[in-house]
């Protein structure tokens, strides 16, 4: 038996605000001299190996890059050139040759810059 009034109803179901900060992956761009740029990927959770990702990125975009140990931000992947949207696509791609089942949700990625 069920009582109509006591159905489970989440009062915060339609809460739009993102009150507690999610663990966003930030993809940023920085201008260097001339038309050269750097792309940084920051905030990847510990489950992901930055080394493996960097290797994949480097191969995919034919660019160089490094992993930077930052005091506050942890490990940051830095790539040469503007690969923001491509990195985003890569990280959300569920294809078997990309992220597979470890693909990130689009909401967890923030692209910064212009």
């Amino acid at each position: 038996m069920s009582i109509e009034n006591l159905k489970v109803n989440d009062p915060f179901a339609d809460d739009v605000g993102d009150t507690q900060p999610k663990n966003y992956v930030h993809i940023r761009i920085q201008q260097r001299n001339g038309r050269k740029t750097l792309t940084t990927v920051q905030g990847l959770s510990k489950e992901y190996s930055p080394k493996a990702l960097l290797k994949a990125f480097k191969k995919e975009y034919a660019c160089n890059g490094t992993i930077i140990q930052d005091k506050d931000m942890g490990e940051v992947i830095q790539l040469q050139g503007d690969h923001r949207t491509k990195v985003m696509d890569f990280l959300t791609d569920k294809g078997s040759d990309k992220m597979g089942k470890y693909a990130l949700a689009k909401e967890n990625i923030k692209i910064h810059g212009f």
Partner: protein
Amino acid sequence: MAETEETPVFDPSLKKKPRKSVAFEAENGDEVNGAGKDNAEPQGLETGEGGEGKESEEGTAEMFKGKKKKKPKKADGDDEAPGEVAEFDPTALKRKKKKKPSKEKAEGDSFDAALAEAGVVPRGEGEEGAEDAEPALPEDTGDLLLGTGVWNAASTVDLTYPLLLTRFFTLLRSQHPDLAGDGRRSYKIPPPQVLREGNKKTIFANISDICKRMKRFDEHVTQFLFAELGTSGSVDGSKRLVIRGKFQQKQLENVLRRYILEYVTCRTCKSPDTDLKKGENRLFFVTCNSCGSRRSVAAIKTGFQATVGKRRRQQT
């Protein structure tokens, strides 16, 4: 400077709902109509757009009266229309008069006045015949804005409610875009004026103007810009922002758009009429002035900054 001139006003919400806000012919026509009514027939009912067909005329006329009243005031030297009305329609019924200005206006806008004058009389006569036959015509004959065809006061077609409703909203949208729709008006701020200083610096000239429009502090916007663009800069003597790096107007526009989305618009009612205040414990709160909602916004974080330019001395 030069590059900013092509887009007069940049509308951050443009991508969501493109809307044409000007319907000049309709406006013009209304004025003509209003003038005609005033001179020829002061006691007359609303013409053209007000007359939603005979049956519903009383009701809708009431509805439109408010905005009707402004129109005749605006109508200036539109003497040709009243002249015509008076000339060829001195004894006709009210109804007939109504129809004619609207008809004449429909065509007269595109042709010269002289052409219209010559053409109006036969057209008026012909219209009479056409109107008798009109009930057979499909519903969407006639211009919604000009009040011709089915919409003519003299027309005897039975107008369905949805039909009237569409007309109402078409008119409302074209003449009073701010009243129509979902309550949120399009939010417009001037486009950023971007100049290049030397080779490596960009000047954002009208930042204080934009900030004033958004009711945000310059510092906050500046901080956001620098954090997003991953660069630094300063404010020069005339309150312009000097950003290091080359940026185009479009790029800054994108960043501003993101700023507005994040820190200006209310999440609940989408209104841009909000205040940013520093609440207790160093959090920023956005308070909406139209719906009263209050939400906290994330502080601006710069995040990781790679060292660009000359290598810093390696600290051990």
